[in-house]
């Protein structure tokens, strides 16, 4: 591949990284903490390619600063075009129900060694993250959640006749996503909700439903369910 083409590819790829990090799109793929690193990486890519271009423009026949090792024998840099096209043209969405059904891992289990749980806030309806809700139902033996109304946010996922409100937890990038899910029962009309629709659910936990037999997936008796817009950062951590 020609040196000029390599430089253009580098600028395109750097531009793709910058576009992701400046538009919140990066949250579909990686954790928020990676944003400064992405900006730095994109800027350095563009800088390196820019320096090479400037150098080539200045170079005369006598002082040719650098020539490609291997004289175009390598085709691997063509692969750099793939992420560029994927980001600019396709912009794949954040992971959803398809990923939830691929794994039986349950991200919420890792917190079981936390000693005790903080008291739940007062109020008629308690908003909780799915991760905290599942962890509490599985490991909090005091039954502090029984008879409390909670509000959960997630997307609709379906497997084997069961409907879940689910979310994915990532620790670095979307490749390591682990599902967190809560089975829904009762009314509220969740049957008519399309898969992957983001919802806010209020309801009460079925006491003792998160056991080893259910793979620590609790059941929620739904009182109300309402569709909401997809949040900017769809992942829990």
């Amino acid at each position, binding site marked *: 591949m020609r040196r000029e*083409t390599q430089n253009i590819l580098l600028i395109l790829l750097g531009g793709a990284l910058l576009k992701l990090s400046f538009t919140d799109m990066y949250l579909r*793929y990686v954790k928020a903490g990676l944003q400064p690193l992405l900006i730095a990486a994109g800027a350095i890519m563009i800088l390196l390619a820019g320096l090479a271009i400037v*150098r080539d423009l200045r170079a005369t026949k006598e002082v040719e600063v650098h020539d490609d090792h291997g004289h175009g024998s390598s085709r691997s840099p063509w692969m750099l075009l793939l992420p560029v096209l*994927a980001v600019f*043209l396709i912009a794949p969405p954040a992971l959803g129900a398809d990923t939830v059904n*691929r794994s039986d891992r349950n991200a919420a289990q890792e917190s079981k060694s936390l000693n005790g749980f903080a008291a739940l806030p007062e109020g008629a309806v308690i908003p909780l993250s799915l991760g905290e809700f599942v962890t509490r139902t599985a490991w909090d033996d005091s039954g502090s959640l029984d008879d409390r109304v909670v509000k959960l946010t997630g997307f609709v996922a379906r497997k084997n006749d069961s409907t879940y409100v689910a979310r994915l937890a990532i620790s670095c990038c979307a490749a390591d996503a682990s599902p967190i899910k809560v089975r829904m029962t009762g009314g509220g009309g969740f049957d008519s909700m399309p898969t992957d629709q983001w919802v806010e659910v209020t309801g009460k936990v079925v006491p003792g439903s998160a056991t080893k037999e259910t793979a620590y997936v609790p059941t929620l008796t739904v009182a109300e369910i309402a569709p909401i817009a997809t949040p900017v950062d769809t992942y829990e951590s």
Partner: protein
Amino acid sequence: MTITSEIRGRRSSGRGPLRGKVTSLEVLCLLLVLALVLQDWLVGVLDAPQLRTAATVFVAVCVQAMPFLVFGVLISGAIAAFVPASALRRLLPKRTALAVPVAGLAGVALPGCECASVPVARRLMQQGVPPAVALSFLLAAPAVNPIVLVATAVAFRDAPMMVPARFVGSLLTAVVMGWLWTRFGKAEWIAERALRKFEEREGVSRWTVFTETARHDLVEAGGFLVLGGVFAAAFNVLVPTAWMETLGAQIVLGVIVMAFLAVILALCSEADAFVAVSMTALPLLPRLVFLVVGPAVDVKLFALQAGTFGKSFALRFAPATFVVAIASALAAGAVFL
């Protein structure tokens, strides 16, 4: 366009006539136009849930790894430009057998994941460090650095012994592979281009050597990293992970299954502990194997190694590392778990 073609004309010595020849520049333009024209069709084709998941995982792997790769090529460029070969020789013990564990421990100082260490190891070799020593650094750096160990400690709050077990298992893998290479490795397995030195010419500043080396490494390694991302995304949707995770409940089968899972999932070494901890159906030992094998050999790393050091190297090195990593993890597990 006229300016560039003029410059190209001047610079084209040794490239054959340009007139009437299609160059990569034209191919790139054609590809970009085609992609733009076919955008709607492409988006429509990718609208199946499985393909959408694969596309997201692909972009995620690439995006997540790029900063670390950039970090790696900057270090690689800095070594080429500012660290004379004699300094490295003075720093390392004379005997390769002694230098191997030193290089393994030196991995503690490179806080990144595996993508960063490949270009650095290659540059070390090129500066006259024996291949066995550089390879030992390559295997140790992504697994024993403080960031990875802290991440492991946070993930495995219940089983703190996972941290020393992982450290020892990974270091053992690196050192054993270094010694094996000293004993059996052949220099001709490593592609000649990997060891070729940047031509030093009169009037070329160190700054130029630094940026040009970094740029060159980035373009080469970046392509293979993307290839690795394609494999990781394909395996992510094609391999029934849930089924493999339940299989792993038996200890012997579990070790084998988890070792293969580490290879095909190609997780970043800073994140794999969180995945391992969520596989609660498994005993600790298979999960330790997962953590030791992953940073040493996975599909992304294999693509990077094949691109950097050549196919005949990667085809020997990766399987050997796979076996040694499993054995080292089992040994470390026997002591610590």
